[in-house]
């Protein structure tokens, strides 16, 4: 259980987090938001990499400042854009990381090999990481999480920059983790694929939270219609006119030259500030 109260973080005059208060207690929680929404700052504070300006964080009953060493024993954080060291192999990474966590060399080797086998990376275990694909490189970190058996894993944008197949490979690997997972992403599809709960950040604040179904409830029986320079719109993004209409009016808008799209988590952002007709 993670309890966050009135958490703020300032970088000079910039308020990256503005008094975030939230409880997180789900198996997989996704934090979504646009670039600069405060997701990474939030996850870096929770994973003890960044000091908050004010507020408190309590992880499994431990305070993030007072009990930092205890907390670091039960968490693991894979930073955004983390890359393995090119000249080292996946198995060497795992051994090194597990030894950093206090494992003996033989334990680290055994658990490292096991995790790589679980993620179907056995044949690459001795290949220097600069020869691996992007997806394989990310899986090295997921293997660390799998082998570490920690209580909480923080994944900051785990699939950014990967092609669709590599993303699916990483998702499958993440699903094998027994730990509670908190991940940030701006791929809405990723959030809905992996999480029980989604927390939406905007401009340093939590603006909504719930299951994917809860969050999309206001869009029930609706579609998104969009057209370049369309005359009717709820939202305009550049030249693109976007409107939310009931399913049964989709045909009407198709005939007006609009494209009709199914609702996704993207619409949480697109529709911000829009009052949806019931």
């Amino acid at each position, binding site marked *: 259980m993670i309890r966050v109260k009135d958490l703020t973080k300032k970088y000079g005059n910039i308020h990256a987090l503005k008094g975030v208060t939230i409880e997180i207690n789900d198996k997989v929680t996704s934090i979504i938001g646009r670039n600069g929404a405060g997701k990474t700052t939030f996850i870096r504070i929770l994973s003890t*990499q960044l000091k908050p300006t004010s507020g408190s964080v309590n992880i499994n009953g431990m305070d993030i400042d007072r009990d930092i060493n205890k907390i670091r024993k039960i968490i693991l954080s894979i930073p955004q854009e983390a890359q393995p*060291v090119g000249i080292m192999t996946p198995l060497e990474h795992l051994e090194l990381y597990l030894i950093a966590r206090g494992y003996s060399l033989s334990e680290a080797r055994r658990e490292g090999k096991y995790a790589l086998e679980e993620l179907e990376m056995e044949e690459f275990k001795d290949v220097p990481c600069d020869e691996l694909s992007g997806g394989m490189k990310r899986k090295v970190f997921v293997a660390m999480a799998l082998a570490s058996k920690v209580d909480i894993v923080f994944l900051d944008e785990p699939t950014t920059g990967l092609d669709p197949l590599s993303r699916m490979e990483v998702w499958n690997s993440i699903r094998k983790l027994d730990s509670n997972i908190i991940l940030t992403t701006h791929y809405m599809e990723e959030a809905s694929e992996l999480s029980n709960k989604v927390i939406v950040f905007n401009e340093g604040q939590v603006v909504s939270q719930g299951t994917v179904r809860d969050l999309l409830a206001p869009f029930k029986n609706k579609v998104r219609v969009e057209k370049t320079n369309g005359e009717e719109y709820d939202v305009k993004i550049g030249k693109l006119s976007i409107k939310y209409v009931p399913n049964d009016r989709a045909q009407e808008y198709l005939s007006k030259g609009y494209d009709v799209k199914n609702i996704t988590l993207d619409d949480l952002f697109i529709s911000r500030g829009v009052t949806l007709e019931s």
Partner: protein
Amino acid sequence: MNLRFILIFSYNYGLKFIKRGPSYLIASLALPLSLLFLIFIISGGRLLPYAIIGGVLSIVTSNAINGAADAAFFRLQIRFQDLFVASPLTKMDYMTALTASYFVFSLPGIILYVSLGFIFHILNLLKLIVLILVIFLITISFTNLAFIIAGLLKHIRNVWGITAILSIIATVLTPTFYPYFIIPKNFLMVLLISPITPASIFLQGYFGLAPYDAISIPILIIETIALMIMGNYFIKWRE
């Protein structure tokens, strides 16, 4: 202290780096070996001891300074440092592991120059022990300088340029390859800011190449401690 981590890190990032990236090893030896050749030719062999002692210090120093690029790359680009911040590893373990890996990476050069030192009768066992102690201090001080540089940077685009400049300043401008007493005292005082200067002054004196200056060792130790304190502060473990 997590000694296992320090050993495995220096094995993977020091010893295996030599095997998997030999071009970096050759690059680190290129300048001191070129200077050794030039000094030997120009002085007719007379200044060879300076080239050998200077060479070994130069290899250790430039490898440690190049650590700034690694430390910055690990912190800012591939986020390798952050991985360990959110773990039971301490920043002292991490810093010691990086320092040890640069020392290990310097070993082939040290062995080569020590061999030359024995071949040309510049070294004996006692002098070798003293030389290794100085090499340790130099590695620690310049690796901590590397942590300071890496910690001050907000991005990595200039780090390779900065380390190349510092490496040349630290190893060529200072009295590493030439007798310390031939430069004006005021200039020498300025150069004392770099730990390699007191190290060179001490070794040149201890090896009987120049007047012995007892103050050089305390200066080297104080500078090493100061750099360790600053490195520990600037590494930005928990920002």
